[in-house]
Structure formats: C-alpha cells, structure tokens
C-alpha cells in the first residue's frame, strides 16, 4: 500500500535522524537539507538510498539535485512510489 504524505514525512525524519543525527521533530517540510539539517551532498545520497528502500521508489542521481527541501523529497516520493 502506498504511503501517505504524513507517513513519508515521518519516515524521512527517521532516516535523517539516523544519518545526520537531527531530532525527528526538526525535519519539517520547508526545511532545506543542506542549509537547515546539516545533510551535505554525500549524506543526501545516503538519505536517498534509505528512502528508496523504505518507500519502494527509484530516485536517480539527476533528480537528487532537485530535492532541496524535505517537502521536495516528500512530494517526489509521493508521486513516484511503487
């Protein structure tokens, strides 16, 4: 069953917490991965791979650079999940 927007946000928060050590409650839609959440370009790859596994979605490298905010990632996953 496809995940809802809330479930995706919650899952991403857990992933970002695991990889960058950011408290889950700080992972909000409008937050920028690099500027607000201390997720640099390499950590972003780890976040993306973890999200791919969790939400059964493929996020090619070319699309990763468009995911600036948590909301961008939530919307992308919502649209592309299997």
């Amino acid at each position: 069953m496809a995940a809802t927007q809330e479930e995706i946000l919650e899952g991403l928060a857990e992933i970002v917490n695991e990889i960058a050590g950011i408290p889950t409650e700080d992972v909000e839609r409008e937050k920028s991965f690099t500027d607000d959440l201390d997720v640099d370009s390499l950590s972003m790859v780890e976040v993306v791979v973890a999200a791919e596994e969790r939400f059964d979605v493929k996020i090619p490298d070319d699309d990763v650079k468009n995911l600036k905010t948590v909301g961008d990632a939530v919307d992308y996953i919502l649209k592309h999940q299997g």
Partner: protein
Amino acid sequence: MPSKIEPGKGSAYPRILGVGGYRPTRVVPNEEILKHIDSSDEWIRSRSGIATRHWAGPEETVAQMSLEAAGKAVASAGIAPEQIGAVVISTVSHFKQTPSIATEIAHRLGAGKAAAFDISAACAGFVYGLTIAKGLVVDGSADHVLVIGVERLSDLTDVTDRSTAFLFGDGAGAVVVGPSDVPAMGPSVWGSEGDKADVITQTVPWDGFRVGAVAELPLGEDGELKFPAIRQEGQTVFRWAVFEMAKVAAQALEAAGISPGDLDVFIPHQANMRIIDSMVKTLKLPEHVTVARDVETTGNTSAASIPLAMERLLATGQAKSGDTALVIGFGAGLVYAATVVTLP
C-alpha cells in the same frame, strides 16, 4: 588425436609474500590546497576525511617510486629479484605510453628477463594486478610475480577545481605474489560497467591537443592549453562506491568462504573517508575488524592506495602477518575487483 599438451606445474596456493610502499617526501596540507580554491580545511575534512597528502617532487618519478616500493616488497618477501618471473604495473599517470614502465622496472630491479607489462584499471588496478598474478602463479607461468600500483595523480589534478583539488595524492605500493603451502588468496569478484564511463574520467584525451582534433582546445583562464585532469561526478560515484561495492565486497567474502566474523582486516581503496565509513556501515562489519583509513594522510592514490594502506597497517602493528583481509578496488571505467587474502 590432438597432441598432448603438458599443463603448467604451478602452485595451487598463491600468496602475498611481501609488501612495500613509497610515499613522496613532500607532505601537502589542506592549507596549501586552499591557495587555489575557495573552500576550507573543515569542508575538505568533512567531505573527504583528508588532512594531508604526499605530492611527488621532480626526482620522485613514476619509475623511481615504483623501484623504491618494489625493492621493499622483494626484501619483505625474502626472495632475490632474479626469482621474479613477471612484473605487472598498474598506473594511469605514467605519461610515456610505450614502452611500458614495467620493462624498465624489471630491468633496473634486477629481475632479469621477467615478463613485464602495464595494465590500466584505475583505482581497481592493484586488485586487477593481484588477480593476474594469482593466475600466473597457479598456472606456473611465473614462480613469483611483482605487482605494483603507482601514481603521480598530482600531475592529473586541476588545482583550481574545488571538488577534486584536495582528493589526489602520489605514491607507490607493491607486493610479491608467490607459492604457499596453504590457501591464502580467494577468488576475485571483478567486473566493469562501461555504461558509466563518464562518471570518472580524464578531461581531455591526449590527441585532443592536436589542433583541429576537437572543436575547442582545452584552454585555462589565462588562454594557455590546460593539461588533462581527473574529474568525477561525486554523488554518483559515492552512491555506486558505497552501495554497489558493498555488494561486491560481500560476494568476495562469500566466494572465499569467509564470514564477516572471520575477517580481521578490511582494506578498501582509499578514495574518501566518507565512502569507507559508509561501506563499513553497509557491510555491517563487526567491531573487531581493523579498517584501513590511510586516506587521511595519503589522499587518493588510485592503484597505489591498497598496498600503501596494507603496508602501513602492518608497519604500525594495527594488522599482523597471517591476518585475513578483504581488499576491494573500484574506480574509473567503471571497474571493480575484490578478493580475500592472507596478509604477508
């Protein structure tokens, strides 16, 4: 009836008998790299884990560094140079294409008329060479094979490119592979992914410097011809290196019949500390496994990185002779190779 051909009488069990390394005398700290790029020591360390690297001086040629490392490897193996039956050198930074650098090294080292040739497999080159050496010893085509990984990547570094200027280093690492009484090298898990050829590449081919060969000659801001450099797509390389190479590493363990719990040492190609840390996490290696982190003070030395790291782990007592080590090389091609070995 075809004539009967005698098969070779090699050793069933090849082994790394000795290892040696050479690091150029000049140590280049991040502060020096920062003269040419807008970055910071903190940024470089956080993205790569690299604090210093060695850059070769004019006397520290590819040949000279190779000889230094090879001499140590031969001494450490306890053999005489004339016992070497083949010399295999992996490098992407020896700028005279023919003859090979291997023939010069065989001659200058005193390896007589040993077979000698260069191979091109970038950062996987050392394990590719090891794989070839293993086959030669098993087959009996050579009793002892000298495998050298050597690079002067400072020559292929664009010091003004803020994403790669800090990555590369120079040096040479060598091993001697010879016969053993017990199994000491597992099968190699290796391959290539030519569909990703553009991910890590030399900016301009040598014949691109012929006038008219390409639409625009590679010119720097000063209008001078710009020497080729190595460029890479960092995120793509990171994803491939961490997640795809972890699978290859796991396959190499399985092929050798070694469980992660049996492993003593992990020596991945020293590309970037973040790749190493993430690979260790993905592979779920047990705490007791010693992980090579030579990249911090050596940078990425491509084909030389694994034997250099191996030599340092043994020299500092972090690893010991007889330990079981997983080695994996991966890089431009893309190419990769992993195997399990007993440390010399």
